């Protein structure tokens, strides 16, 4: 009897702990807005740029019946996930480098909770990015995003899972914050290129097209695009993302260090 009461008070306490932790990590995310700027502001601006290009050159893209803003909305969503995930090493590697994670590990709180709180904040950011981009696209620029909710949501979720897992791989492997910023920059550009931001994979030859299709960001963009306009994502794209999530998750867990 007293045991269950003890468990109850312990679980209530750990709930309180986690709420406190989320609050603090949330405040820090607002004060160190790498993820906020990259994940929310930049996509909003990019969308506006494509929106105005679209308004200046109205009409179809190719012969798809879609406008420029229609075509770019899904890609910009994936970009915002990329920015949020590469911001992960910036804070977590820094927290490890300065000994903060080690300091926390001397308390009853396991530092994995700190990481979990950070991931939840980033998930909230990703959800906010989806809302902002879709609403901005629809309300300001009249992008038509007629999607089947379930495949679209699955594609978004897998994209987030895969790209966040990649962020955690960087956290695990990169030794210092300075290196983290440099690596994050390179990775961001690589992922942006592979997502088809500059070159549409449909318009390039093999093997580049295959590489782009089966890259983390390329598969994500393809799945989100297809679930937006082609009735649903291809299993190949979904499977690709699932496999990346497992591999990245495994590497991140295998090589993760708290100090």
């Amino acid at each position: 009897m007293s045991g269950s009461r003890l468990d109850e008070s312990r679980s209530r306490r750990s709930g309180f702990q986690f709420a406190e932790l989320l609050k603090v990590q949330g405040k820090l995310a607002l004060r160190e807005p790498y993820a906020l700027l990259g994940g929310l502001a930049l996509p909003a601006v990019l969308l506006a740029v494509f929106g105005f290009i679209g308004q200046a050159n109205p009409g179809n893209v190719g012969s798809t019946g879609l406008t420029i803003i229609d075509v770019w909305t899904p890609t910009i969503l994936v970009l915002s996930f990329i920015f949020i995930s590469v911001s992960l090493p910036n804070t977590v590697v820094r927290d490890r480098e300065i000994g903060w994670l080690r300091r926390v590990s001397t308390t009853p709180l396991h530092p994995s909770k700190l990481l979990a709180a950070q991931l939840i904040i980033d998930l909230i950011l990703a959800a906010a990015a989806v809302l902002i981009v879709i609403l901005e696209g629809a309300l300001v620029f009249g992008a038509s995003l007629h999607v089947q909710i379930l495949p679209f949501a699955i594609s978004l979720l897998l994209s987030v899972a895969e790209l966040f897992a990649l962020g955690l791989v960087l956290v695990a492997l990169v030794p210092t914050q300075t290196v983290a910023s440099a690596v994050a920059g390179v990775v961001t550009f690589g992922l942006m290129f592979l997502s088809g931001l500059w070159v549409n994979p449909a318009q390039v030859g093999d093997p580049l097209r295959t590489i782009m299709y089966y890259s983390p960001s390329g598969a994500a963009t393809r799945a989100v695009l297809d679930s937006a306009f082609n009735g649903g994502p291809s299993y190949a794209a979904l499977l690709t993302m699932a496999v990346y999530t497992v591999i990245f998750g495994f590497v991140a867990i295998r090589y993760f260090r708290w100090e």
Partner: protein
Amino acid sequence: MNAAPAVTVQNLVKKYGRLVAANDVSLSIHEGEIFGIIGPNGAGKTTTVECISGLRAPDSGSISVYGLSPQRDRNAIREFVGVQLQESALPPRLRVGEAVRLFASFYSNPLEPDQLLESLGIKQFGNSSFKSLSGGQKQRLSIALALVGNPRLAILDELTTGLDPEARRETWSLIERMRDRGVTVILVTHFMDEAEKLCDRLALINHGTVIALDTPEAIATQAGGSRVRFVPSQPVDEQTLRAIPGVNEIERKERYITVTGTGDLAGFLINALAAIGVRVTDVEARSGNLEDAFIKLTRDDASTVGKGVQR
């Protein structure tokens, strides 16, 4: 003093690759005392306290903290052991009050964060971010984080390194107040004045082994010896001085002769010189201090280690 020690370390060995950080460290710490760990850089002080706090697993040997094992009972130990780590920072934009409240939420029976900040004299910095704090304020915050869980044992590693003299004195009085509240304190330091002033007992660690364990006064008198400076009425040669019981070292500077050694140095010296008709004037005697003891003990230890290697 309680019969059962708060902390016992027996034959602790910890290696990092080929580097032996702790080589057979044994010590026991009483409840409610300030226990100092001193020693040269790289002697194994930090490794020892990291093993006590459960941050590192010993390669061999056993550690008991209030009857629990830091490795097996990690979770239980974290509840009542507060740790202040050497070179550990907070996220730069985390604020003082937030950090202390956050840490308070980790423990089941924490101190009241505002009162704690008040007693540490940093309440007015509650809304300051970590990066805007001075060195002394950071150290006090670090102490606050080690204490907010209301620990029975506080482990403080190089607490006053980088502080100005006034901040050091304030920190010392804080630690004394902690002890007065019944907290057992392990203090790692390389400041001898700090160890001499604060610690009830000391372990001197060198090359991963405890080479002295006693009260600061006892260590200072045993090994530090005393020093007598005087002016002789006529020249005295080296051999005469060397023959006096307890004399170890002789130093001459202008008219002054400084003799260091052990026992009742001044008494023997004056008597022995009087016997050969030499009067001494301007006598200045100083009993041994911890710093002398530290240097002597670590040097003696180094010479034996050196011989070991040659053989």
